[in-house]
């Protein structure tokens, strides 16, 4: 069962230079996920300032600067893990360094239409 763990951060967090301790904690977390054999994919995300939004209406492409909605917190990173069940996913979410400062959202990945393609490849 695959889950995505989503983390969020405020605009200020993105503007500040990276905190070495936080970077180290993030790296350690990634290594722990990898060592446990549950890591599928993951990355930190660029700042909201670097975000573009795309939509297609009536066949016409529209591109906007910035994230879709102005909110207090922006998507800041994600990890996809493969674990047996929700309890295991929640345990990994609690170990995510962001859980102690912000929140970590845990969502199951639905059976994906990309999955078949991946297996062929």
């Amino acid at each position: 069962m695959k889950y995505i763990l989503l983390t969020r951060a405020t605009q200020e967090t993105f503007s500040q230079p990276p905190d070495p301790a936080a970077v180290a904690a993030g790296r350690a977390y990634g290594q722990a996920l990898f060592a446990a054999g549950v890591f599928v994919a993951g990355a930190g995300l660029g700042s909201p300032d670097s975000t573009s939004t795309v939509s297609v209406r009536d066949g016409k492409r529209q591109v906007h600067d910035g994230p879709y909605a102005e909110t207090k917190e922006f998507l800041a990173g994600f990890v996809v893990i493969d674990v047996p069940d929700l309890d295991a996913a929640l345990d990994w979410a609690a170990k995510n360094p962001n859980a102690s400062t912000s929140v970590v959202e845990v969502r199951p990945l639905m059976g994906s239409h990309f999955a078949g393609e991946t297996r062929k490849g």
Partner: protein
Amino acid sequence: MSEAAASGVIAAIARDSRSRLLAFLAARSGDLAGAEDAFAEAFVSALQRWPADGVPDKPEAWLLQVARHRVIDAARREQVRKNSPLLPETIADEAQTVAAASDPFPDERLKLLFVCAHPAIDAAARTPLMLQVVLGLDAARIAAAFLVAPAAMGQRLVRAKNKIREAAIPFRVPEPPEWSERLSFVLDAIYAAYTTGWESAGDTAATHHALAAEAISLGQTLVRLVPDDPEARGLLALMLHCEARRDARTSATGEFVPLDQQDPRRWSRPLIDEAENHLRLAAARHQLGRYQLEAAIQSLHANRALTGEIDWPAIAQLYEGLVRLSPGIGSRLGRAVALAEAGELAAGWAALEALPAEAIASYQPAWAARAHLLRRLGRTAEACEAYLRAADLAGDAGLRKYLLEQAAAMK
């Protein structure tokens, strides 16, 4: 076999074994709603076939076989639709083994209780989910007890079951470090069912009384499943003590009677004895907990039947422990009242005044307690006001009437 005889057997199995069958299948498929549907169909098949074919040797095993076929069919369809992690063959093999075994199949309802009270389930859905899944109550009845529209309750239950399946909440019994926290969710959900059933003593109380009885039956099931857990026994003792006083809460003319003025001869001795027995067994484990303390407080009240007196200093001490263990408004309020009753009126009043104003602004018991202590302090005008506020906030008609009479007596 006659149709009536067969449907009698089926009704008995539905009553006695449904939740065990459900727990067994759902724990393997991970899909509670799917398992419920499968058993609904299995029971329909039984109603169609048993009158003609006769009741099978092992009727539960027969039902399990039919239901597991439904689940496997559904899982195969699902696997085609998306990459389901489900392994239908595993379920099939295991269900086959169990169906063939001569022993009664394992009771896995504890897993069911833990799933229903999982922290990832909406807190407002946990108690209703337990009542439906473990006791088999229908959504309309649960909705009536919780004063929610049936459609809204139905939706809440469906949403919770979908989450169990889609988020893959595991059917498992947690290990010790997690055990007590997770068990506390189960206990809280059972107690919520009981208090929902307890709060009303008036004429709308029929569904509520039934709900209190269902909560006790959940508590008894839990104690059978975890006989060594002192808090499970503590909760059961607490509910039984309260239940013992149900009749005494209203006078012959239907008036509300507060606990310390109830006639102990109207308390149920068998229920008190059962409560005391559970509390004794719990205390022997030497692991104090919130529900054991609350049950012990009720036990001291019940003691008035023997001694004719209430040991308020002892009650105040138990509340002291309760405040340390679970410092909620309810326990702090109880301590304040107990202190005042134990002769420390000033200390009791100070403890009451120390409660955060915003937390008690619309908390009925706090206003009733406040009125009571103000009266003891001789501040009758303020006591009258507090009684009126308490009456305003009282959900139960009998209690409201009682509080209005107290207010009138202050004038």
